[in-house]
């Protein structure tokens, strides 16, 4: 199934995915997904465990090679080397942090890897946005899971990515952290960043989304753009997908 989900066909796409397939041995984790996202679009991706959502994000992040099909970020084919990767911010339910280092050191390390100008100011700004400045010098291992997730989000945003890939980003966040993340994602969207968010929380996901899809067995089984998203219908499709996955 294929969806062209850019609201304006003339707008330059940040993400273009065409018949993307990713197999692990005989298992098709992603089975021919196609879509495109323009700047400011947010695709909320729902689906049961094992539906292929994380695999799709890992392919787009350049961590996995597609078996077939194509994927482009800002026109650069994936896996596209440093140029494509520099435009992507990755958030996961894994924090991807070094527990012996502090939040400031973790975010600064990332900023330097991305070759960011005025890195120090960007690091402080990212930490401030996630309300982590007061714990910026404590070792990661001494922070709660939610605080670690906040730092992980600050790390992923420090280079102002054009595309944010968020795999269950609300994992471990308390209400305050979740509100901060939602506000941040909204602001990124309005600044032209495209977002793909994988979540099991329909309300949270749909509140951010300009587009939504339910994924099952590697395929999109439902897709709608903002003006046609019906939360009730999504809940029903999601329940069906969960039931079908056992």
């Amino acid at each position, binding site marked *: 199934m294929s969806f062209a989900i850019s609201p304006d066909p003339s707008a330059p796409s940040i993400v273009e995915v065409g018949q993307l397939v990713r197999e692990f041995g005989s298992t098709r984790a992603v089975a021919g997904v196609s879509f495109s996202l323009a700047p400011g679009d947010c695709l909320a991706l729902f689906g049961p465990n094992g539906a292929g959502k994380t695999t799709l994000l890992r392919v787009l*992040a*350049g*961590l*996995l*090679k597609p078996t077939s099909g194509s994927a482009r970020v800002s026109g650069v084919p994936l896996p596209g*080397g*440093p*140029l494509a*990767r*520099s435009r*992507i911010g*990755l958030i*996961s339910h*894994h*924090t*991807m*942090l*070094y*527990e*012996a*280092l502090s939040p400031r*050191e973790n975010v600064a*390390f*990332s900023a*330097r*890897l*991305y*070759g*960011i*100008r005025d890195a120090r100011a*960007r690091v402080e*700004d*990212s930490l401030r*946005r996630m309300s982590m400045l007061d714990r910026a010098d404590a*070792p990661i291992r001494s922070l709660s899971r939610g605080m*670690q997730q906040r730092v992980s989000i600050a*790390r*992923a*945003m420090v*280079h*102002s990515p054009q595309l944010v890939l968020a795999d269950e980003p609300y994992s471990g966040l308390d209400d305050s952290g979740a509100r901060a993340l939602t506000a*941040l994602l909204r*602001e*990124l969207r309005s*600044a*032209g960043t495209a977002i793909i968010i994988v979540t099991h929380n329909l309300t949270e996901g749909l509140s951010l989304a300009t587009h939504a899809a339910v994924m099952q067995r590697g395929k999109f089984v439902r897709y709608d753009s903002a003006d046609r998203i019906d939360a009730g219908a999504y809940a029903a499709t999601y329940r069906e997908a969960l039931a079908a996955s056992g």
Partner: protein
Amino acid sequence: MPARTRPLIERRWPLVADILFSAWLIARKDLSIEFRTRSAFLSAVVFSLLGLVIFYYAWDPTAVTATDLAPGVLWIIFTFSGLLGLHRSFGVETADRAIDALLASPVSREAIFLGKAIANLIFVVAVQAIALPALALFYNLPLGDVAGPLIAIALLAAIGLVAVGTLFSAMAVNTRLAELLLPMLALPFFVPIVIAAAQATAKLLSGRPVVEVSAWVKLLLAFDIVFVAACTLAYPFTVED
């Protein structure tokens, strides 16, 4: 986050300089982590000193001279203590999938490998800097005249060991038996380096002229060039699925 008004990413250096700079960032990060925890370094130093003590008490000076025994002891200790640090090298990346952030960053795979290798080299050299004087002390070896060439040989051998060990550490880290697999994979490749280093050390300690070890030094140099180049080029394949 403010909207971007100018390019945020600055890449003006030539590719090689860019790779080396990124590698140094990664090495510095690894060394910072090791400096904070000191777990692998202390383990390696304690292992080295314990090894020296055990060999010392098992040694019969009337049957084997110190200069005959010391090269073997030295390189056994360097090899196995180095493995402790090599195992940890990619272990710090797996704790909460930090390696994913590293691989998703614009840094080249070669820079990641070189960064890890540089950190491992500094680790191994630091262990050597403690073990070598301890060896001289235990076995009453006059290292004064041969200290320079011996340090050069230790450094050359360390480069080869670290190149091979870092590659196999990357390959073994995601397996369930990583601690067992790393030595099983790496030790056969260590053999030619250790033989060359031990032979060169033996000649130096027995008072032979430095020129006599030049063949072994050239061999070590050749191993280093081949292993560093081959392992750097091979590393990207270990992170491809």
